[in-house]
């Protein structure tokens, strides 16, 4: 028998602001795409495209991941937060830095971009001070813990190269080529976002879909391979390599997420809870988007000859939308309807459990609204991808508007989860059933 140490989660008021602020980043990304111009389909490094990407990645997904790590680390992974006061300061610094950074990219104000970039570096440093002791070591511990610990290294690499590229833009140290942008982007998207999504899935998919009969078999090897492939691949991409080197890099970099996808599919098919709620549906949809992302990534590596209309920017844009909005985004939306209601339950109703009737998680969020949010968002991603691939600006803009609509529904539903009073659902009585004697 083992005597376990008690888990300690942070206060709801500490982590909820991250979840509630995150959809604003998706809203900004959607609105930027709604007002995109012809440049968006011609160059992947057009200011509006770069602004939308950063609004989605560091405004939306990263903000929510910060909240998730602050919660999961101490409550589930056995870590601790160094300072709860720093968490509050971090939230304010991050919110201010991201909004200024995205505005500066949109208007291509390089000096403001550099200053806001320093704010982002401060945000990441504040995050790491708490996140490193919260998630533990990359060499031991549970699979989610190891994935998250490794992903923290990638946020350092992605931010470090990103700031260097901003410095190069401002001071003309060297040209910021497409290869250098691509290397930075993949450190952030595969290293930081990808490994975080993969690690958290190892915790939440078995938990919420009740997987008992199967265990992950390759999680550690997938982590090691993906991390090494991402570092190596990103460094090679920064040298602006030729066609065949790009294809080899793409195959190597997609192998880890592909193997993880197969592992998650295996777990989901072995689940005991057959009825799919929003989190289960989101898992399947996001795995579909992962497959699309991998295919588009391989085609994007081939470049002009594999791109519709001979415009590499279009397939690169579709690849980014599929990966960020589809794979990572759908995962986040599905899990947020489990994580946040559970947090509300834990902090508000746990102390009454067993003493008086309390609501369960299903009573705290609306499954119908959650599914509607997921449907609007997934449709938006497909429409925006189609607009990019077809080279149709109006379809791309429609996808952007749908992304913004999904963000608004998501935001209001999350606010309702946190602020509204909840009651246990009345027990359903079948006709003829005796309920009292």
């Amino acid at each position, binding site marked *: 028998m083992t005597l376990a140490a008690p888990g300690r989660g942070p206060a709801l008021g500490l982590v909820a602001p991250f979840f509630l602020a995150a959809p604003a980043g998706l809203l900004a990304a959607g609105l930027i795409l709604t007002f995109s111009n012809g440049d968006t389909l011609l160059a992947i490094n057009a200011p509006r495209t770069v602004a939308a990407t950063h609004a989605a990645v560091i405004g939306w997904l990263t903000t929510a991941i910060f909240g998730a790590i602050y919660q999961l680390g101490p409550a589930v992974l056995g870590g601790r937060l160094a300072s709860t006061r720093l968490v509050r300061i971090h939230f304010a610094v991050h919110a201010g830095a991201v909004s200024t950074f995205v505005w500066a990219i949109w208007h291509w104000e390089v000096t403001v971009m550099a200053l806001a970039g320093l704010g982002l570096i401060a945000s990441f440093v504040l995050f790491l001070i708490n996140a490193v002791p919260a998630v533990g070591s990359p060499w031991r511990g549970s699979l989610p813990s190891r994935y998250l610990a490794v992903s923290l290294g990638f946020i350092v690499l992605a931010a470090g190269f990103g700031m260097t590229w901003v410095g190069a833009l401002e001071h003309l140290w060297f040209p910021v080529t497409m290869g250098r942008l691509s290397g930075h982007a993949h450190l952030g998207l595969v290293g930081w976002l990808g490994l975080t999504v993969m690690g958290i899935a190892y915790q939440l998919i078995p938990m919420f879909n009740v997987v008992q009969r199967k265990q992950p078999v390759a999680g550690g090897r997938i982590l090691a391979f993906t991390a090494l492939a991402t570092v190596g691949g990103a460094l090679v991409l920064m040298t602006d390599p030729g066609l065949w080197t790009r294809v080899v890099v793409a195959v190597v970099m997609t192998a880890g997420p592909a193997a993880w996808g197969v592992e998650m599919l295996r777990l989901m098919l072995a689940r005991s809870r057959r009825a799919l709620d929003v989190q289960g549906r989101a898992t399947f949809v996001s795995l579909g988007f992962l497959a699309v992302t991998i295919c588009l990534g391989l085609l994007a590596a081939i470049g002009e000859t594999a791109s519709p209309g001979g415009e590499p920017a279009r397939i690169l844009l579709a690849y980014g939308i599929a990966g960020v909005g589809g794979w990572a985004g759908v995962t986040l939306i599905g899990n947020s309807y489990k994580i946040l209601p559970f947090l509300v339950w834990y902090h508000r109703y746990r102390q009454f*459990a067993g003493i008086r009737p309390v609501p369960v998680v299903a009573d705290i969020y609306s499954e119908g609204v959650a599914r509607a949010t997921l449907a609007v968002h997934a449709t938006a991603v497909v429409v925006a991808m189609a607009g990019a691939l077809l080279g149709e600006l109006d379809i791309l803009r429609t996808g952007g508007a749908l992304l913004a609509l999904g963000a608004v529904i998501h935001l209001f539903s999350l606010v309702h989860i946190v602020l509204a009073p909840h009651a246990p659902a009345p027990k359903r009585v079948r006709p003829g059933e005796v309920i009292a004697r």
Partner: protein
Amino acid sequence: MATIQIDNRGLQPPEPMVRILAALGGLAVDDEVVALMDREPHLLYPELERRGYTWEFDGRDDAYVLTVRRSTA
């Protein structure tokens, strides 16, 4: 001494926690609740501590078992 056995396998969080806390309501000093679990219930432990119970978790085999008793201290 009585043992209340609960099978919490196949339930989504927080239902296992709710069922264990409900079962503890009528527990006498020497009684215990033995619950079969899918995984270790980290978030239950602070609540057990607050309500004055001790616990042991056996996670060595396929079937995870949590045993809860009223604290004698």
